[in-house]
Structure formats: structure tokens, C-alpha cells
């Protein structure tokens, strides 16, 4: 883990990574920005007096807590939407929007760039489709490099749960991204 001179330096280092994490969880830039801003506000207002090595786990704990809150609210909203019959229509709109956004420039890009873009997009989809707890365990363990114990502390669950979430996440990602596995061996 890196050490930081002050909390601003820590935020500069972490804000974009936190945003990517929140966006993968919420699939929404605006929501992700709000969540990251909330997490930064809380960290600064409540924990800026803590030692710098405590900031990263505290920040990610707040971030994951905010994401969990959003996820719970969204689950309830979706239940009501589906009950009111609006969910299906909205899902179709989201799919159309996603298709428009994913219309790539494949005819003007080199193969390796195209391959990277495809992997990046597939990875984003694969991570987004993971259950939230698996997603969190994977991102914290694999991307942020936290130990099982630290991840359990951030996620406020047992180490055993982290191991289970993490191994399931990894298995799902391997399965989702198996079409790229040939490239890995080269």
C-alpha cells in the first residue's frame, strides 16, 4: 500500500479508481460521481485526523457502504417498477442506449487496440454482472490488492465470506471471458 503525505494526495490517487468501482456497481456515471463525492466528504469530515495508512481502508469501507445503500434502494425501486409494469419498457430503453454507445469504430482501429477494447468492454460487462458482494470482494482483493482480512474489514463480513465471494467472482469472470483465454497464453 502507498503512503500519503496528506488527505488531498490520497484523494487524488483514489478518486478515479473509486469512480470506476462505483460505476461498475451502478452502471451510471452520475450516481457513481455522487457516491464518490459522498465517500470523500465523509472521509474528510470524519476521519481526516486519522493516520494516513488508515485512510484507504476507511475510504473503501465508506464507498462500499454507499454502494450497498444505493443498491438496496435500487432493488426496492425496481421491484415497484416491475410491479407497476414500467420495468420492461425501461429495460428495453437501456438496452437500446447501450447498443448505441457500444457502436464501435472497428473499421479504423488496429487489431491490438480493438482487441484491448473488446476485452475491456467484456470485462466491464462481466464485472457489472457479478453479484454486488462478489464484485466488491474481487475489486478489493484483486485490483486494490487488499488481503482477505483487510477486505473482510472493509466489507464488514467474515474472511470466509470474502474467500467464497472472491473465488465465485473469479470463476464467473473466467467463464465470461473465456473467449479471450487464447490470447492470454501468447
Amino acid at each position: 500500500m502507498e503512503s500519503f503525505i496528506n488527505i488531498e494526495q490520497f484523494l487524488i490517487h483514489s478518486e478515479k479508481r473509486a469512480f470506476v468501482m462505483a460505476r461498475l456497481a451502478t452502471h451510471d456515471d452520475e450516481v457513481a460521481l455522487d457516491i464518490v463525492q459522498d465517500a470523500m466528504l465523509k472521509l474528510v469530515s470524519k476521519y481526516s485526523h486519522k493516520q494516513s495508512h488508515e485512510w484507504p481502508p476507511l475510504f473503501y469501507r465508506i464507498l462500499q457502504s454507499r454502494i450497498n445503500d444505493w443498491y438496496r434502494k435500487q432493488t426496492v425501486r425496481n421491484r415497484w417498477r416491475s410491479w407497476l409494469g414500467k420495468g420492461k419498457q425501461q429495460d428495453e430503453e437501456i438496452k437500446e442506449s447501450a447498443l448505441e454507445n457500444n457502436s464501435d469504430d472497428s473499421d479504423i482501429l488496429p487489431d491490438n487496440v480493438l482487441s484491448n477494447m473488446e476485452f475491456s468492454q467484456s470485462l466491464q460487462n462481466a464485472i457489472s454482472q457479478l453479484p454486488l458482494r462478489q464484485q466488491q470482494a474481487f475489486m478489493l482483493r484483486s485490483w486494490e490488492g487488499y488481503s482477505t482480512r483487510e477486505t473482510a474489514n472493509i466489507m464488514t463480513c467474515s474472511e470466509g465470506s470474502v474467500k467464497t465471494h472472491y473465488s465465485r467472482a473469479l470463476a464467473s469472470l473466467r467463464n465470461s471471458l473465456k473467449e479471450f483465454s487464447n490470447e492470454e497464453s501468447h
Partner: protein
Amino acid sequence: MKKATENLKTHFEEKISNTLDQQVDSLDDSIVQRLQEARQTALLQQKKSPGSPRLNLTWITAAGTGLALASVLGFMVIPHLIADFTNNIEADPSLVLMDDFEVLSDDSDLDLYTQLDFYQWLDDSLGEATL
């Protein structure tokens, strides 16, 4: 120390980590700008947080205002209370409880009150005797 099975995962995870890092590096300028603004907003909170001079000044101002208000109320209310008490004494001196004071300052009279039953019996006895 990592197990051998975990080492097998490393290449796959490494590729994922690198891809996620690329996503961080290629965020839209508008997103980066808004994250910077969010950070500045958060850091402004730090300046307002407990222990900072601005907040201390706020607390001192609030405490001073409270004390001043209490003093004004005190100067306005206390003279009225004193005046009311004095007026009541002038209007009705019995409020000073002079009777109690007299009783307490005169030992003989106090004996009279404490032995009242005896004097009552004596008075009755003498009355019967004269009849």
C-alpha cells in the same frame, strides 16, 4: 506465501487489473473535472471541521452572544424581583415573620409555649378551687 493455485490466477488477474487501470487513465475529461470539484468540496469540509480556527471562532461567538443575552436578561429581571420583594414587605410586614423572631429571642415566653398544657391544667384547677 501464496499457494501454487493462486499463482495460476495471477496472470488472469494481472490482465484484469491492467485493463481496469487503463479505464482509470482513459476517463472522460468531464468526469475527471467533476471528480476534482468533488474533492475540492470535500476538502473545504476539512477546513470547517472541529478544531479549525473558523469553527472555534463560531463557537466563541455563539458562547459570547449567549452570555451577553443572559446578562441583559439578568439585569432586566433581577431588579424587578428585588423591587417586588421589597414592596411586599412594606405592604405586609408580617411577611418578615417578626412573631417567630420574638418567640425565638425570649426564653421565658418559649417556656410558656412549651409548657402550655401545664398552665392550662393549673388555670382549670385554680378555677375549680375558687368556685
